């Protein structure tokens, strides 16, 4: 009999080792795919962000088990939740505890599983297509969102009624980002990702020989891009160094162009109906302006493509640039990677081309969806919207995730917005939420993220921006035409 066991044992060992071999190969791919594991990821550009951190985490995760945590009442309704950022899962865990206290008759138990970025989206899509195996609630990164929302109410539960109690104060642009082509809301947002201008007040004051307050007064008086350029020229003249610049322009990111489009109310994707058109006046204006800046020495090209990479952080820390526009989630890059800069930076509205235009645009994000495969759709939808839009939910998002929350009711709440224990309130000269209030929820524009979006972003970041910015004499019209041709191939 012993021999038999040995034989069985050997076979099992062989299968196990083979499977282990497959597993590690898959893990490699997963690690690669995970580059975008951040809530504030947007298609091509932000797919690059936190690559080192996320990848490291995944490399470790690949060898360990997939992190799964269960929170809440074991006797309550069970909900499965998938995410690609472990911190997001903890947010729902905390919210489930509060929910159970408030709703003792409808308690829930939630199991949050964190998969690598690529894996999670592939798994979700596959299970939605197969009609089985999907979780109740799932995070979907905005760049992947068009693929998921393509199934509309066959795959996802419309959140319209569950979100209704909060809609009056939710930033409309962010809710629209996660709308389906049928007009229903399918995703609940974490953050606005509102773009604002970051200024290094300390460096400017030192160079210009004036006090911080005087610099802030000058920044506050900037309304248009012309004002912005004037202030930049003043700074350039004061510092008088060739290797110090006012700002840096991106060859690997489209944030500047999104701002320009939002200001004019344009959208190069054309929304769900399309067709996509990149030859917009707003885009041309921004690119031409940036070419002028490069020629006059006002701006440099962001090292390695954009400011949200290690070289970009170093560039900021070396004070080679003293202003740049970025979404408010970039605040966490300051606190994580540039702690030395604490107290130097001031956040202000972005300049506009013409006074009265919208001055911000929501960039990046993760929408959370409820799937039709859920056994408790209504409860899941209600819990999700509560966890992401209510006072309690928004408080926890700001405290644990550090995002600019979408419910504007919080923005003016003194205890929420001016809490001096908050690390971001401590880090920056002014309160980030004051900037949001100044911008106002109606002045935050929206660029659609639809099926054609990755194509546009990709061509812009690989080709167009490199052409016009690496060679400031390159014709903007020609470059945009080339991009349009590439986009037309796909639509």
């Amino acid at each position, binding site marked *: 009999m012993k*021999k038999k066991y040995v034989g069985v044992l050997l076979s099992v060992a062989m299968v196990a080792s083979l499977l282990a071999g497959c597993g590690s190969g898959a893990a490699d791919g997963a690690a*690669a795919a995970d580059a975008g594991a951040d809530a504030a990821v947007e298609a091509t550009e932000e797919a690059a962000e936190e*690559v080192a951190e996320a990848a490291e985490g995944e490399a470790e995760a690949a060898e360990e088990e997939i992190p799964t945590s269960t929170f809440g009442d074991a006797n309550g309704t069970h909900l499965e939740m998938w995410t690609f950022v472990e911190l997001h899962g903890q947010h729902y865990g905390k919210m489930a505890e509060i929910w159970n206290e408030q709703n003792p008759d409808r308690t829930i138990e939630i199991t949050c599983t964190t998969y690598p970025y690529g894996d999670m989206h592939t798994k979700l899509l596959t299970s939605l297509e197969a009609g089985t195996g999907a979780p109740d609630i799932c995070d979907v990164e905005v760049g992947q969102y*068009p693929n998921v929302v393509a199934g509309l109410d066959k795959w996802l539960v419309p959140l319209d009624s569950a979100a209704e109690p909060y809609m009056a104060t939710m930033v409309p642009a962010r809710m629209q980002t996660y709308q389906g082509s049928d007009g229903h809301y399918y995703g609940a947002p974490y953050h606005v990702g509102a773009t604002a201008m970051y200024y290094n007040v300390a460096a400017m004051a030192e160079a210009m020989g004036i006090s911080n307050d005087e610099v802030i007064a000058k920044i506050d008086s900037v309304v248009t891009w012309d004002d912005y350029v004037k202030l930049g020229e003043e700074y350039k003249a004061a510092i008088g160094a060739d290797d110090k610049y006012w700002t840096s322009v991106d060859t690997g990111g489209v944030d500047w162009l999104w701002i320009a489009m939002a200001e004019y109310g344009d959208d190069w994707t054309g929304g769900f109906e399309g067709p996509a058109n990149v030859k917009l006046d707003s885009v041309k204006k921004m690119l031409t302006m940036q070419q002028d800046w490069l020629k006059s020495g006002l701006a440099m090209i962001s*090292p390695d493509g954009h400011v949200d990479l290690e070289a970009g952080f170093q*560039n900021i820390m070396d004070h080679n640039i003293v202003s740049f526009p970025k979404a408010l989630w970039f605040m966490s890059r300051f606190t994580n990677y540039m702690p030395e800069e604490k107290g130097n930076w001031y956040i202000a509205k972005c300049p506009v081309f013409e006074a009265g235009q919208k001055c911000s645009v929501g960039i990046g994000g993760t929408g959370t969806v409820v799937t039709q495969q859920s056994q408790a759709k209504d409860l899941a939808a209600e819990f999700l919207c509560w966890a992401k839009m209510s006072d309690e939910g928004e408080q926890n998002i700001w405290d644990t995730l550090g995002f600019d929350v979408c419910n504007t009711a919080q923005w003016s709440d003194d205890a929420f917005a001016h809490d001096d224990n908050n690390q971001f309130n401590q880090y920056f000269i002014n309160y980030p939420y004051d900037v949001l209030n100044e911008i106002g929820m109606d002045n935050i524009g929206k660029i659609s993220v639809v099926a054609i979006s990755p194509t546009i972003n990709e061509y812009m970041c*690989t080709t167009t921006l490199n052409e016009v910015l690496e060679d400031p004499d390159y014709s903007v019209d020609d470059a945009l035409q080339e991009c349009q041709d590439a986009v037309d191939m796909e639509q």
Partner: protein
Amino acid sequence: MKGKKFVYSQKVAPYVFVVPFILSFAIFWIYPLITAFTMSFQDIGAIDSEWIGFKNYTKLLKDKVFLIAVANSAKYMFFTLVLLIPFPMLFAVLMDSNVVKAKGVWKALLYMPALTSVVISGTLFRLMFTEYKTGQMNLITQALGLGTYKWLKNGWSGMLALLILACWRWTGVNMLYFLSGLKAIDTSLYEAADIDGATPVQKFFYVTLPLLKPTTIYVLTISVYAGLAMFLESYMLWAGNSSPNNIGLTIVGYLYKRGIEKNNMGYACAVGVVLLIVALIINFTQLILNGTFKKEED
């Protein structure tokens, strides 16, 4: 007991032992291969898919970005073959000779990079090749008075970075393959050569090289495939799948871009099938030329 008889049967036993492999091979290789092939003739939609014949393939032929990806992968494969076969072979011969002291240390040093994750090493190389003045490469060029250079924005220097990463990573592995090949060569052959008065160079060309041929063919075969299938290195070096003017885009990178980023699985499968065919053609040509399929001479 019938079961006992079955298990102990000498005829059945070999099959029982190969079953795990056959099963996993069928489930994880054959099945995906066939599905990929059929999917490449479909437009895979969110709700349903439709057959579209050769449309994916005809589009692929006109796709300029795909052609760039093919050219990049081909270049990368060619240069890795040029660099990663002769040099590891030379190192292996040195390790096998009495010229080198502290062989264990050298072997460990050369092999170590293969143990690090590509994700981590890719990130490190990206930081080394950054266009910012603090990057390792730019520190060197600045010390030489050449100023800074945008390494990852120009075709040749981007390829250089990829090749340096590949060599750093794989030299040790290939060296070990050759080393094991060398150990299998009978020392009496060298003694015989010595008696005949052969120089070390002659011994290398007339004894070592021909007898290493099976190892060389093996290394060549896996290198062709590894070169064509490279993806992660480029993905990490450019912190994503988008490199300026697609200088770092590979065939698999393009497959990932189409399949995962744009969720166009049908088209991605067509890319995969083309990659498979190209790899098979190159490897079969190479194996036939090397005489692998000829009957062994007596």
